[in-house]
Each structure stands twice: as structure tokens, then as C-alpha cells.
């Protein structure tokens, strides 16, 4: 089956010809290698669930590594996609210490005490490494959704920039909806003026920053330097906003209704998946992270326990039951997401599923345990061979997986976090 050529696609979508960002459709590659078929873009999704899973029912039997394993109780709803997922054992971050932080270091593997005298330190997260490469071609370099409080996720964010500073997530799917699809009725000139005004604001505070640095000690200057870096980062954002200013936001083929602000828990997660899907269909962004809701999620399941108390389920039959229900609901929603990813076609005939790498998990296993981090991956974007229960050697760095995802998706970084290699099995049947 011959997929339609890139040129045909561009020609048929006349609206896009005017785009200043033809790169976003692989134009450059197309232009330089005319004969080659450009493939659909690679994408990455990280779903962080905060407080971990029900250990006793989430992990497959350790004695059954490989293809021939039985999906455990918590993952049963994923049965239809067993061939499309990989469940890991024994991945962990060597430096993790925070028993209430499921997300803070999940994508970074950083050591919070790495800097003497500083009680908190973090480093760039895997999604931002990908975004640095994928993000240039889309309106939004990356998109971050924050479905709850810090509870179970830990301080800061799930995503950390190259300075190790937290990237704020959008507080609710409704904010993501507006960011992605709300059309701005303001005339172009006014929007340009607003951006210019933002630039002038930055220029103003920078002049204060420059004048105070005089006479400060080296340590103090380093501290003020964080301020300079932050302002520079906003300048970059503004520059990008300016480039996209005249490009109308693309609407998904099947439009999404504005979500209600009262969505909480399960419907909130469903809507988040819906919006990520639409964002991929319109190529608004290629990198997504989600700090999934905790308390509201279990509450919408009908459980009367908080997510923290559910994580302390060993010994309590009621909490254990609710904890398993929570796992199963997560698995069910994920199965729904996979189904839609598979059904959504790219112009080259492949599906969104074929080009995405999706990781679902947490830095926390059960209670406050930080070993054997629950980790499930799906999607064909990194070229992983799925369908297996991969029992790794004890204490395999979780960063090995992040590095494998990055390299497999064409982000050729030499290393990531404390990775000591890639997971070869993922690339071999």
C-alpha cells in the first residue's frame, strides 16, 4: 500500500501552504530529500500517577518473564492490548529518597541533595530533552497538564527545564482546551502590541536585575542568575508566540466541546486523553506530560479514602480493594486511549499509536517504596517490541528506559540522568 506523498498532502491542505512553518510538516526533510517519504512525527507522552499501585496485584508473576505471562488483576482491562504494552520490573532511580514524590524525580532521576548546602536540586526531565528537538516544529514546544495537588506527586512539577526548574502545568483540561483550540478574536496588531509590551516588561525588570548584581558575591550572583535565566526563557517563549501569531489554531477533524470546569477525577482524565489526542491530530505539540489527579480520581471511583491513605493499603481489605479498583480504572482508561491512538491515522497512513511513545507510571511503588517503580510503556514511536513482561536485573536505572525512549524516537542524546545504557531487549523481538 502506497501512502499519499507528502507533496500531495501539502497540496490538498491549501490552508497550510501559507504556513511560515513548513518544517512542521517535515518540509525541510522533504525538500532536501525529495524522493524519501517523510514519516509522521515522533511524539512522547508521560502519564504520572503519583501515589503508586497495588503491588500485589499490579506486577505480573516474577517467574513468568517474556511474552508468556498473565496480566495481573490490576492490569486486566488492558487485555486487548497485551501485545502492545510492556510491563517492567526492577526499574528504579538510585537517588530517590522522597517517599511522597511520585512525579518530582520520575522523569529526571536527579539526586535532590546533589548540591551541598542545598536541600533541593533537580535536573532536566526526559520530556524536555525530547521537547528540545520535537518542539521547534509545533506551536507548543510541550504541553503539561496538572490534575491535582502535590499530594503523591511531590513538590514542583513532573517536568523540569534544562536548569532543573519546574515547569508549571495547566491546572485543568479546560485550560488546555482553551490553549489548544480557543480562537483569539483580538486583531493581529493588538496581539503583536501585547507581545511587544511583554518584551518591554522583561526589559524593565532586567534593568533592575543588572543594577543589583553590582557588588554582590559570587554565590549571590549565581542566585540572581536564576532570575536572568528565567527572564531569558520567557523571551524565548515570546519569540515563539510571535512566530505563530498569524497562524490560526488548527481545529481537530471532530471538534471537541469546551469541557466543563467541574470535571473531576475519572471524566477529567478521559477529557485529558481526549485533548492530548486532538493536540496530536492537529500537531499542536508533540510532547505531553500529565500529573494525574489523585484524591479526586479515587473519590470519583466511589472510594472514601484519600489517595495517600490508599497507598497505605497493606493490611486493610477496604483500602486494598479500592486501590485495586483505582489501578483497574487507570488501566481501562489507558486501554481506551490506546484504542483511539490506533484509530487515528496520520497522512502517511500510519497511526498516532505507531509514532508515539507513552510511559505510564510513578516513582512510587506502594506505600513509600521507591524501588521497582511501576512502569508500563506502549506505542510504536521508539521502535520498541512490545508484548512482554520485562524483568530487569535488580536496580536497573529507570533512566535506561528514558534513554531508550529518547534514542528510539530519534533524539540522539549521549546519555540521560544516571542511565548506564539503553534497554536492548526493547529493540529485539
Amino acid at each position, binding site marked *: 500500500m502506497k501512502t499519499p506523498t507528502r507533496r500531495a498532502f501539502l497540496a490538498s491542505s491549501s490552508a497550510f501552504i501559507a504556513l511560515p512553518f513548513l518544517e512542521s510538516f517535515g518540509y525541510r526533510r522533504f525538500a532536501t530529500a525529495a524522493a524519501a517519504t517523510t514519516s509522521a512525527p515522533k511524539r512522547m507522552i508521560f502519564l504520572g500517577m503519583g501515589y503508586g499501585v497495588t503491588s500485589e496485584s499490579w506486577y505480573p508473576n516474577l517467574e513468568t518473564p517474556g511474552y508468556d505471562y498473565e496480566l495481573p488483576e490490576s492490569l486486566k482491562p488492558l487485555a486487548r492490548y497485551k501485545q502492545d504494552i510492556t510491563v517492567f520490573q526492577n526499574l528504579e532511580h538510585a537517588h530517590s529518597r522522597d517517599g511522597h514524590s511520585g512525579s518530582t524525580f520520575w522523569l529526571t532521576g536527579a539526586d535532590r541533595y546533589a548540591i551541598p*548546602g542545598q536541600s533541593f536540586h533537580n535536573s532536566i526531565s526526559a520530556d524536555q530533552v525530547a521537547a528540545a528537538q520535537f518542539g521547534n516544529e509545533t506551536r507548543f514546544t510541550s504541553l503539561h497538564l496538572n490534575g491535582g495537588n502535590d499530594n503523591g506527586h511531590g513538590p514542583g512539577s513532573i517536568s523540569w527545564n534544562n536548569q532543573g526548574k519546574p515547569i508549571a502545568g495547566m491546572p485543568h483540561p479546560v485550560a488546555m482546551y482553551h490553549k489548544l483550540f480557543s480562537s483569539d478574536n483580538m486583531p493581529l496588531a493588538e496581539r503583536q502590541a501585547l507581545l511587544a509590551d511583554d518584551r518591554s516588561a522583561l526589559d524593565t525588570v532586567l534593568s533592575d536585575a543588572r543594577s543589583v548584581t553590582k557588588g554582590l558575591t*559570587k554565590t549571590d550572583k549565581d542566585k540572581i542568575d536564576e532570575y536572568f535565566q528565567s527572564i531569558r526563557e520567557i523571551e524565548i517563549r515570546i519569540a515563539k508566540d510571535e512566530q505563530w501569531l498569524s497562524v490560526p489554531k488548527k481545529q481537530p477533524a471532530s471538534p471537541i466541546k469546551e469541557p466543563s470546569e467541574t470535571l473531576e477525577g475519572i471524566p477529567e482524565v478521559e477529557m485529558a486523553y481526549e485533548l492530548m489526542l486532538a493536540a496530536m491530530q492537529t500537531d499542536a505539540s508533540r510532547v505531553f506530560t500529565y500529573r494525574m489527579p489523585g484524591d479526586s480520581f479515587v473519590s470519583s471511583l466511589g472510594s472514601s479514602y484519600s489517595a495517600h491513605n490508599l497507598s497505605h493499603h497493606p493490611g486493610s481489605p477496604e483500602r486494598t480493594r479500592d486501590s485495586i479498583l483505582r489501578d483497574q480504572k487507570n488501566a481501562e482508561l489507558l486501554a481506551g486511549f490506546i484504542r483511539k491512538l490506533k484509530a487515528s491515522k496520520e497522512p502517511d497512513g500510519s497511526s498516532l499509536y505507531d509514532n508515539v511513545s507513552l510511559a505510564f507510571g510513578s516513582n512510587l511503588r506502594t506505600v513509600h517504596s521507591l524501588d521497582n517503580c511501576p512502569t508500563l510503556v506502549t506505542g510504536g514511536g521508539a521502535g520498541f517490541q512490545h508484548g512482554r513482561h520485562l524483568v530487569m536485573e535488580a536496580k536497573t536505572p529507570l533512566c535506561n528506559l528514558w534513554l531508550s525512549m529518547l534514542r528510539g524516537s530519534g533524539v540522539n542524546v549521549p546519555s540521560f540522568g544516571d542511565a548506564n545504557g539503553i534497554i536492548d531487549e526493547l529493540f529485539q523481538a
Partner: protein
Amino acid sequence: MRLFLSLLLFALPLCCSVIADELPSEQQAVMPAKHRAIFERYCFDCHDSASKEGQLDLESLSLEISRDIPTAEWWSKVLAALNAGEMPPTDAEQITDEEKAALLHDLSIEMVKARNILSDSGGEIALRRLNRREYQNTLAALLGFRPDVSNLPADDSTGGFDTAGASLFFSADQFEQYRATATTALITALSDRKKPSSQIHRVEPEDTHSKEYFDRQEQLLDTIKRADAFLAQETSPPQDFGFRDVAHAEKQAQRSRVHLKQMQDYTRRPQAKEGAFLLRDKGHSRPSIRTPKVSTAGGRYLLRIRAGAYDDSPQRQRYVEYAIGNPKDYQVLGQVKISGTVSKPNVVEIPIDLEPGRSGAFQILWRDYKEQASRYVTHRIEAQKNGIGQLPVVWVDWVEVEGPFFDEWPNTAKMDLIAPRRSHEDNATYARRLIQSFATRAFRDQTPADEYVDKLVQRYLQKRKSGKGHVASIIDAYALILSSPSFLYMLEHGEPTALAADPTGASSDDNGPQTSSLDSNLSRLTDRELAVRLAYFLWSAPPDAELYSAADEGTLSRDDVLRAQTDRLLNDPRSDEFISSFTHQWLDMVRLDMFDFDARFHPEFDQAVRRSARQEVYSTIRHVLDQRLPLGTLLKTDFVMVNDVLADFYGINGPTDLPVQGSHFRKVTLPPTSPRGGLLGTAAIHVMGADGTRSVPAIRGAWVLKHLLHDPPPPPPANIPQLSRLSGKPRSGRELQTLHQEAPQCAQCHRKIDPIGFGLENFTAAGLWRDAETVSINPASAKKFQLPKSKSFDIDSSGTLHHGESFGNYFELRDAIAAHEDAFARGFAEYLIAYALGRPYQISDHRLASDVTRQASQKGNRIDAFVHALVQSETFQTKWAERPRVGP
């Protein structure tokens, strides 16, 4: 290196662990040579200089752990491998438990010491950004009201104190959050609204609140009727009756019948038509009686409630809570006990001050459990007893709200923020004057640079030109000022000359560390900088006019003036911020809110108790400070600070045995037999040492070692399984905890920790006294809404402190701990230093801590004496500095 540092710096508050002064052992962390024999016997097969398996050569590895980072890193790996039981390998000869415990004991203690030695910064104090509390207080000082700052990151979750400059980072998102928060606050501050007139609204809840119960009863009757009609016939489909199928109809009917009983019990009461009962709906929801919306201008309101409670109801349930917000999302402001009865109600009046910008309505709720599970389960347990469920307790005749009242209008600092235009001023001159003046105050009395002011004025003019009004344009400029580094960071440049002697030449007869000359890498703070450091230490807010003028007169650094100002700041109510913020972080009180409580096991414990328990600790420390009592009062004393909620909870009466009335905290003298009095008698400390169901002796013991005895245990190894995995057979807490000591890597610390926890076992998870512990038998087979069968164990609270003192019960344990007031004082001093200086306590602070402790002990260990000694110290008044490279 990273691996090492992670262990090195784990749990920074622990770095206050080393007590002795200036001993050589202080500067070195060394493994005792006696353990060499263990390595030779069990490890050298693989890890001697010849084999070096895994690169590890134990034969030549220095015993001085703190020698350098690579050495420490190796030792940290050794510790981890032994803790995890990975080494020696299972097929090799195993280290005996006794040897292993002794080795791990020394190694873990020396690792902590090495960490402290290797992470010492030599005393440098890093530049601090205002944390969220300080940002809010600083805005309050400038704008005349406390704005909402909940959109900013909290700054308290990164470990250590929230004043630690090195950990207070900054990000691009934060800049935008600061700007947005400041803009909103300024819009409120500069609002040109008219003064709202005071009004009285009375709510008769029979029209609103009770009506919902009557309506609900009708709905339930209707559902039952439809279900019965549907189930009695077979011709029409369920949809005609409003059901999906037979099962749905049956379930709905059954549920409705259950709830109907409660509704009928409500509506049959004659008072339901004259007022309203505050009662859970559907077993768990918490309906509120609400007033009309308040004005967003803030101001003082008087909330009056005419209510009564049934005579036979428990004291705990005779309270209402009042909140501001909407029925689904509100903030509880307090609780008030209803002393009237249903037949003879009376009126309670509550004054409430609201900040401008606050919106919503007052919500009146029954005092109830925060945990939905607890509300539901107690309802069901009641239903099994009386066939109905929770019965109403509090009846409300009416609710009246009067206000807002204002002492002054406008009730913000609007007049100071926008001085009127002078007759000759054009836009540019006027804007410059306003911006210059506001920036100077916002920058804590530092003049802003001309270029910066120029840019702000240009922006202002630009806004005006584009059609914006004066106020909107000035808000833009002010919001940028409140997002600029000079505002966000506490900049300290120090005196221009390095060796600044006391400029006034005044000397003090105090024998404190007097500074005639300074170390060459220290520079003295200017008086203004000192004023700022002092104000943020004791108020978490900028200096007031009086403190600034002391600084401007150049007298603040004089010992007597500084002492007088310190006293003034401590006596000012603004120092409540110091008491609560310092105490909360010092005593790790975040744990107080961490666990839901199960009302099946702790029916007396609810949110009102939890709030009051926190306040009890703060009030006690406030009292000890204000009354100039010794710090040791916190270890043992003959009084408690309680309100009505806690007095009911503890079962304590006031003077002449009358009940304690009112929600304010007051001193109540205790009988000598009372277990209360001092931190160990507070509910808060015991709740923190529990998991919401059971007490956890190890957590209580470790807390006492860390906070009271100043002897923190080393951090626990990661990934310890939860004890409840041992469930299956009911065991006493003491037995369960003793199982911890089976493995040698656990035993070495728990031998020291657990006995203290056992001595506190007379306190339940909620902090109530017990003589026996009730443990559920096999809760797995119990029905959800019943109390599982249980077994009772007599409490054995005897034990031996690792110092050697043995105790037969809690009271003897408390005496033994109270005898260590010196250790407690030393720990307090170290935490105080870390909080005040904005950096973790370090080994190089030992001398300062000794000075502070010594001077305080000469003043009877009064809290103010610790503060004075610290404020008077050279460290507090100087900045560690390189010589400035740039001249002007």
C-alpha cells in the same frame, strides 16, 4: 560522587546532630579501627587490594570517611550494601548479627558526621528570595491588606526551613505568577469602589435548608412509589417508570427506603418547620446554612446564630463550624459551641474580619469529620443501633449577618499608594514621583536605579497614550516593581569598608561575642540591612517605620538599641508568624495533617481537634515566650493551653472545675496526676506519631530523639516494608515494633528509638490516654460498617533510655527526658540559627550555637534570651563576602 552526596545530604535537619565542641573528632569522621577485623574476615576474599572486586579495595580504603568525597562515597556504598543485606553474598560466610549491628551503628553515625563535615560551606549565607509567606506579609505591609497568594508555589516542600536561601529557586513560570498575583492584589488595593453600607440580613433556614430535607423526602417517596408500581406489573417497560431495568428499580427503592427513615425522622420534628437541623444528608454529605454573599471589599462582620443542641447529645457534637466560600469549596474560620438547648436556644455572636478581595458567603456547618469515610461509617453504625442513622444534634433558629464595618475607609493603603497629583505636575512628573516612592518602599528603603525608573515611567506613558487610565497604568508599573529582583530578593551588600568597627564606639557590658574586629572575609551589614534581617526573622515581614528610623539614626547596631528593638518585635503580635512558622518546621508538624483518621477507632478526633491541637503547640510556645519561662517548660510543666474543643477532648476542666468555655486558648493549671503539660502531653505530637489508626512507637521515639533529646537517629535505609505486612495475628504495638529489631541492620537504631515510643504507648493515635490497647482481630473478614472484633493488650510502658535511665511508665519517661533540658536547648538553638540565617545549620556554626546556648542558660533558658544571643552575634550582623570587585 552523586551517590555519595545523596546520602551525605539526606535529611538535612539531621545535621544538627553533633553536639560536642571543638573536639578533634568533630573535624573528622572515622570508622573505629576495631571493625577492620570484620572486613578482613568476611570481605577481603573479594575486596582486598589484590582482588578489588567491583573496584572496592577495603584493605586500603581509609578509615577516615570524611577524608574526601571519593572515600565517603565508597563507605556510603558499603553502608547501602550491608543495609540491604546484599553483602556478603549468600554463599559466603555471614557476618554475625552482633558484629553487623555494631558495625552498622558506627558506620551510620560516622556517615552523618562525614556528611556534615564535607557539606559545610564555611558559614556563608546565600542570598534569599522572599518565600511565599514573606511575600504575602510584605505585600500586606505595602498594600494595607493581606492578599491571596495561593497561586504561588508554597516554598515549604523542598526540605529544611522555607527560609533557606540556597533552596529558594526561581523559574520563568514563577515570574509570571508573581506578576499576576501582584496585579490582582493591586487592583483590589486601588479599587475605587464606594464604601459599602452595613446591612443586616437574617436567614430563616426553614425556608431554605429544612426545605431541602422535605423536598428530598418527597423525592424518595416518589422513587419508592414508582419502583413499587413498576415491580407490581409486567406489561410496561421500566423506562416508563424512570428505571433502566428491574435491578435498577429494586436498588433505587431499597436505597430510598434507607434514606427515607432519616428524612422522616428529620421532618417529624416540630422544630424542622421553625428552623433547621444541621445534619448529614445521604449519610455523608455536609449541607450548610448559607448567608447572602459578602462584599468583596472585606471589613468586619458580625455573625449571629440563634441555636440550641439536644440535652442528651455528646459535648463534641454541640458545635457549629463557620466558614467562608461556597457550599462546595470553603475555608473553615472557626467553631463555636452551642450552649443553648433546642427548647431554649440562645444567640451566639461571632465577629469576623474579612480581607478585601475575599468573596463568597458564610457557611454554617455542623462540626463533623473531615473524612467522608468517617461520616459514612459512623452513620451506618448508628443506623444499626437505632434503625435511622445519625440523629440531629444542633438546631438553628436563624442566622444573621451584619456588616461590613470599617474602622477606616478606604480599608487598604490606597492613599499611600497613589498620592494625589500636584497642581503643576504633568503625567511624566507625577508618574515618576509615584513610581520612585513606591519602588523605594518596596525595595526596603533602597533607591531604585534611574534607568529602571525611566523605563517604568516610559511604560506608564505608553499605557496612557494607548488609552489606559491612570490607575491601570500605575498598577502595571507597581506589579513589575513587585516582580523585580530588588523586591523579591533580600539583597545585602554590607558596609563598604571591610573592617567596620562599631561606628558609634558604644560598647556593651554584656559578655557576649563582642566584635572589635572582623574576620577579613566578613563584612558588617548596614543598619538597614540589619533591620531587614531582624524583621524577617521575627515577623517574616519588612521593618516598620520605627525599626527603619532606628536604622537611619545609625543606632540599630548598638547592643542596647538592638536589644530594645528585638524585644519590641517579639512583643508585637506580628511575631506570631515567627512562632507558627518556626515551630511548624522545627517540630516537623507537617505530619499532623498527613493522615485521615478512622472514626470507627477514634470517634473523638475530628478536624476541630486537629486544628486546635496545632494551635495548642503554638499557644504554649507563645506563652513560654511571653511569660519568660524556661524552654524546659516545654518538656514538663503543670499547665496546658487549651480552648473549649481541646478541654472537652482531654477531659479537662477550668478553674473551680467549671468547663472551659470559648474558642480562645488560655492557661489551665493541671492536677499533678495529669499526663498533659509540655509537648509530650499534647495531642499534636502523638497524632504525628501515628498513622491515623494506630500509634507508631518508632516514629514517636525518633521524634523525641531528634527534637527533644537532640540526638537524631541516622536516616532509615530506603524501601522498608510497612509493618502491617505482618498482619494476620493481632499483636500489641509493642510486640509489632519489637519485630523491627530482628534484623541487625534495623536493630542497631531501633534499640535506641523504640523504648521511648513504648513509653508513650499510653497515648492513642489521636493522643488520648489509654491503659490498654485495643487491636482489631482479622479486620479482613470484618464487615465494613461494623467495628471488627478486637483484642485488648495492657500497655507496658516501661523501658530504658539509651543513656541508661530506666523508666517504669510514661511519667518517669517524661521526667527522664525533662532532665535533659541542656540537650533540648542545644537543639533548639541550632534550629533557630538555621531558621534565622536562612541556611542549614553547619559544623562551622558550633561555636555560635555554644555561645547562644551559654548566654541563654545564664538567663534561665528563656526563649527571648536565645533570640537576643543570636541577634547580638557577629554572625547575625555580618555577611560572608568576597571583596567587591567593582568600585561604585
